[in-house]
């Protein structure tokens, strides 16, 4: 068996590659920080405008809109990365022409794709940390009740279930090159029904039923309850169960679909075309 340090060598090489590339665009790197600050400030002032207007809806999450929306947006960056980074990696490799050079190396396709998206996850974590630090130290966000273990469990399950969707999305990109329906459906519907900017309780009853079909609903709710209300793992059980079921179904399915997509692209000779 290979030592862990050797297993990590390739993912680290990918992260290092992306870090060098990213930091070589110096102004862009700086502007991303600035964007986080500006969006946090906007959310803060927007929540002041709302004031106590939505308290009844926000009560399960502590009653404060700023906390509600900041945790939602910060955490949504993980969902977004899980969904998009794999397909973006493939698309970028096809567009830039680097994918062919990668595929002829002694590294398997899944390692290439997953390792290529690692930097996005690290960057998302960094963004979440900056969001929370700004929230706590500049805008008075209270995270005193947070249950870290519950939050980490929800986070891991969310990454697995959304990562599975991301793999399916990447399979579409592998074959169709552009126009991936999975990403489009989940991104747009999640924004409307998943409870990113408002609790799903504001939706009409019939729409709420659709919300509970989406993993994003359980992910965002679970994270907010763990971070803002300090729910224990047993209290988070319904959310954890839903995300676990989703992961169990979607992960093997996504691997199957991805394998088929790679084979089809190789057969069509379009693996590296865009």
């Amino acid at each position, binding site marked *: 068996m290979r030592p862990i340090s050797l297993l990590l*060598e*390739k993912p680290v*090489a990918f992260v*290092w*590659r992306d870090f*060098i*590339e990213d930091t*070589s*665009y110096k102004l862009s790197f700086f502007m991303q920080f600035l964007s986080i600050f500006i969006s946090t400030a906007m959310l803060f002032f927007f929540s002041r405008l709302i004031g106590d207007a939505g308290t009844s809806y926000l009560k399960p999450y502590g009653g404060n809109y700023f906390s509600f929306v900041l945790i939602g947006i910060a955490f949504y960056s993980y969902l977004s990365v899980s969904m998009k980074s794999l397909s973006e990696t493939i698309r970028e490799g096809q567009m*830039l*022409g*680097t994918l*062919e*050079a*990668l*595929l*002829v*190396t*002694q*590294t*398997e396709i899944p390692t*290439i794709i997953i390792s290529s998206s690692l930097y996005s996850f690290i960057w998302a974590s960094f963004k979440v940390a900056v969001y929370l630090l700004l929230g706590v130290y500049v805008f008075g966000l209270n995270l005193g009740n947070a249950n870290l273990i519950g939050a980490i469990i929800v986070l891991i399950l969310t990454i697995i279930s959304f990562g599975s969707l991301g793999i399916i999305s990447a399979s579409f990109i592998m074959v169709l090159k552009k126009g991936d329906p999975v990403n489009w459906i989940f991104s747009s519907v999640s924004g409307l029904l998943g409870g990113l900017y408002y609790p799903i309780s504001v939706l009409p009853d019939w729409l709420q039923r659709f919300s509970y079909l989406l993993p994003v609903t359980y992910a965002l709710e679970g994270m907010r309850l763990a971070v803002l209300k300090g729910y224990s793992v047993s209290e988070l059980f319904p959310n954890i169960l839903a995300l676990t079921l989703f992961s169990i179904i979607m992960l093997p399915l996504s691997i199957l679909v991805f394998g088929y997509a790679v*084979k089809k692209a*190789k*057969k*069509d*000779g379009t*693996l*590296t075309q865009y």
Partner: protein
Amino acid sequence: MSYVIETVNLSKKYPVLKGYRDIFLRPFRKKETLALHDVTIHINEGEIFGLLGPNGAGKTTLIKILCTLVLPSAGRAYVKGLNVTKDEKSIRKLIGYVISEERSFYWRLSGRQNLRFFAKLNNIPNREADRRIERLLDFLDLADDAGRMFKDYSTGMRQKLAIARGLLTDPAILFMDEPTNGLDPVSAHNLKQLVKEKLAGQEKKTVIFATHNLRDAEELCSRIAIIQSGEVRIEGTLEDIKSKFNGSKKYVMRLRSVENGVLEKINSLASVKKIIPASNGSTGPVGVEIEIGHGNGAIHMLIREIVDMGGELFSFNEIEPGLEEMFSEIVGAK
């Protein structure tokens, strides 16, 4: 006999992107283009095998199939006995692929950083990778520029880095797709020396060299396959190809004097395929280019007949057909 590379009736069809009209009117009809048709080639260990053909002939498709990047539609292909459709992982350990596409590098990484990254993906331990990278950079005269971002490289430097990347794993089999593209004459010459003397000569690597540059193929390759429209038109050593070329030989002969009607008589001889008077005139030396079919004694009989007809032979030379000439004829034939 076991070959390093063997393809048997290898064919590849690519689906053609349908227009909206076809999608609506003929949604189930497949549209395909033939990139390779029944390609059977055998490449021996240690040889430099030239894949020669015009753009779009199918050279790159053949290489991509052998590099496991594309699956064949029909037929079989083996690299060191390994099947390209089943043993992809094992094949990738044996091969190096010099991709001449400059977009295949990371432009904001330096040349050295690019090579280190690809060395890592090829499971080369750090210390060994550094040693190989420095050696290759020195050899390709890139050492002084290895710290510069790839985006600042000239076309020739990018090509050299692609060669360095292909050689990183010290592969037994090296695929080079148009490797002299963009190189200045000195660099191209050095590369060919490297391939011929070091890689094939000393290290006994098998090199598959795809090019449309006839001079490269003529200088380098021990055997050549000329591909056109996805089909191998002719394959063998340069000598084989010359002899197979079209079964005829060309000669230039100069006759001291030609009596009236002698040229017409020569032209009417069965063994003469073509006769082109090089100069004209009823008196003085006359040059004629003669193309005759192969055959035992064909040329001796021709000379005798010309002398019998009153032709006075002044000089006589065989014209060696160049690869360029053969290529034009083969490629132009269809």
